[in-house]
């Protein structure tokens, strides 16, 4: 049996630069695995260990995925192998496009019974891909999985954390599970993990070998928000005076 964990590589939000026209640039950004996807890889590793399965990584995106350091980083965190599907048309791919490609790649692995996705990606955080992927495969799919309790022949028993409850649910296999951001802390790779990561197999699959795909949403613009003009009134006085002044302002604003 195989457990496949899907993860996304995206430019580090911290490296985003804002141009004078409010457009944003990631030219100098480092491409990283998002925090939620690092958790997904850890969850996948734990679930694969429970199921005595091999743990395979699957990553879809633009050619920045050729980055050796990022591949090694993923492989040092409990993956046995990695498949990457790279194409520059996949920069800012919408959720349906990404899920369709992932589905085509998962279908190639006859041994796969469980697919793990993270809560959401670090760049768009739409929290959609796992659910769409499951439906495209025709497999049960569910989000919010906070703990896998038991893996049987035909089903998985797991906890699901919703906004106001914790559910114990049984999901028929094969299935796609999206795990919560706090499923398990992602491991810190040891020197041994890092060294062995370099020797693990990586398969590159061409997009056209998986089929033809199209986006369903058009991106019109990505712009940094204009900051709101604030009044910038600083009150620096003795406590009682400061309080009186502040309350006066609040009254003028109609807030008290």
């Amino acid at each position, binding site marked *: 049996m195989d457990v496949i964990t899907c993860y996304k590589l995206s430019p580090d939000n911290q490296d985003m630069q804002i141009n004078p026209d409010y457009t944003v640039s990631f030219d100098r950004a480092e491409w990283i695995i998002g925090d939620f996807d690092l958790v997904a890889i850890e969850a996948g590793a734990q679930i694969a260990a429970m199921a005595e399965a091999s743990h395979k990584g699957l990553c879809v995106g633009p050619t920045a995925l050729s980055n050796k350091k990022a591949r090694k980083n993923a492989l040092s965190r409990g993956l046995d192998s990695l498949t990457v599907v790279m194409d520059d048309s996949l920069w800012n791919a919408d959720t*349906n496009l990404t899920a369709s490609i992932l589905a085509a790649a998962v279908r190639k692995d006859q041994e796969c019974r469980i697919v793990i996705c993270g809560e959401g990606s670090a760049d768009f955080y739409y929290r959609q891909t796992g*659910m769409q992927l499951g*439906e495209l495969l025709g497999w049960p799919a569910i989000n919010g999985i906070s703990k896998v309790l038991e893996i049987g022949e035909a089903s998985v028993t797991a906890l699901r954390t919703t906004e106001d409850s914790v559910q*114990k649910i*049984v999901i028929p296999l094969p299935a796609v599970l999206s795990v919560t951001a706090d499923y398990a802390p992602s491991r810190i790779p040891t020197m041994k993990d890092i060294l062995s990561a370099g020797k693990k197999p990586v398969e590159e699959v061409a997009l056209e070998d998986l089929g033809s795909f199209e986006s369903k949403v058009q991106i019109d613009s990505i712009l940094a928000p204009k900051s709101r003009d604030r009044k*910038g009134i600083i009150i620096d006085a003795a*406590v009682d005076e400061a*309080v*009186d002044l502040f309350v006066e302002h609040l009254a003028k604003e109609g*807030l008290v």
Partner: protein
Amino acid sequence: MAKKVWVFSDKPALMQDITAGVKECGEVSVIAVGGRELTDAAAKAGADTVYYLGDTSERMAESYTDTIAKLVEDEKPEVVLFGATLTGRAIAGRLAARFGTSVLADAKELDLSGDITKGVSMVYGGGANLKQSAKGGLTLVILGFGVLEKPEEIKAGAGKVVEVPYVEPAWNITLCEEQQRESASVNLAAAKKIVSIGLGVAGKDDIPMVKELADALDAELGCSRPIAEGLEWLPKECYIGISGVFVKSDLYLAVGISGQVQHMVGLKDAKILAAINKDANAPIMRQCDYGIVGDLYEIVPALAKRLSR
């Protein structure tokens, strides 16, 4: 052009909020899963038609996905709006795959007026706004509380109830047990006034002091992320910022909050931003309407006392 707009949320208050907000855009129907009283609640919020699917005593709300898909196929709405909850996301995602469309996820602005639905979502951890257009056909949108402007007076709809037969799905996820967990009863996204605390507050024992000020202002209590995650002094639902709550309050009073960007994006839409901070050079002091420089342990009680006078 009057559009066929549908609304679904497993949270009744969110369903009502979205329904009332979208009323002007066309013919509004609600997909109701849960107690019978939902049909009335939907009509009150403006629903012309309420499709009643059934309750969740024997099956999860997610199990109705096939029933909703059949209904969408038969009735062909142009837009389906989902409340931003785990269940809303799960059902929207499956429908998107089923109908070969994508989802405008977590729209913080939505334009339903044209043939093509446009939405704005926050991306890159709040660093940018992504504006996108659905490519026609069925459009699915996920949105949170208070995104749509509601009219002053909410007009009820005809509320015609249509009973929809259950479609047995190919597979079922079984719910064995469900335990309620403690969640904050406050809805900061809808709060008019918020007093929010950060790491400038030294200990959990000091929270009642700030709460007293919040009460004097008739405000809700919120916080920055470290207070809720990490210190866990307040529930997770109380933190404002990226991956937390986004507020639109008339007043946001930040107490002992330095003003990191991850926090600030969550309160961009607050009308008046005030801050109490002992450091006149804290980032928040350069981005606020009113900044009081001083020790919060002196200012907060004095302000509470002054306001309760």
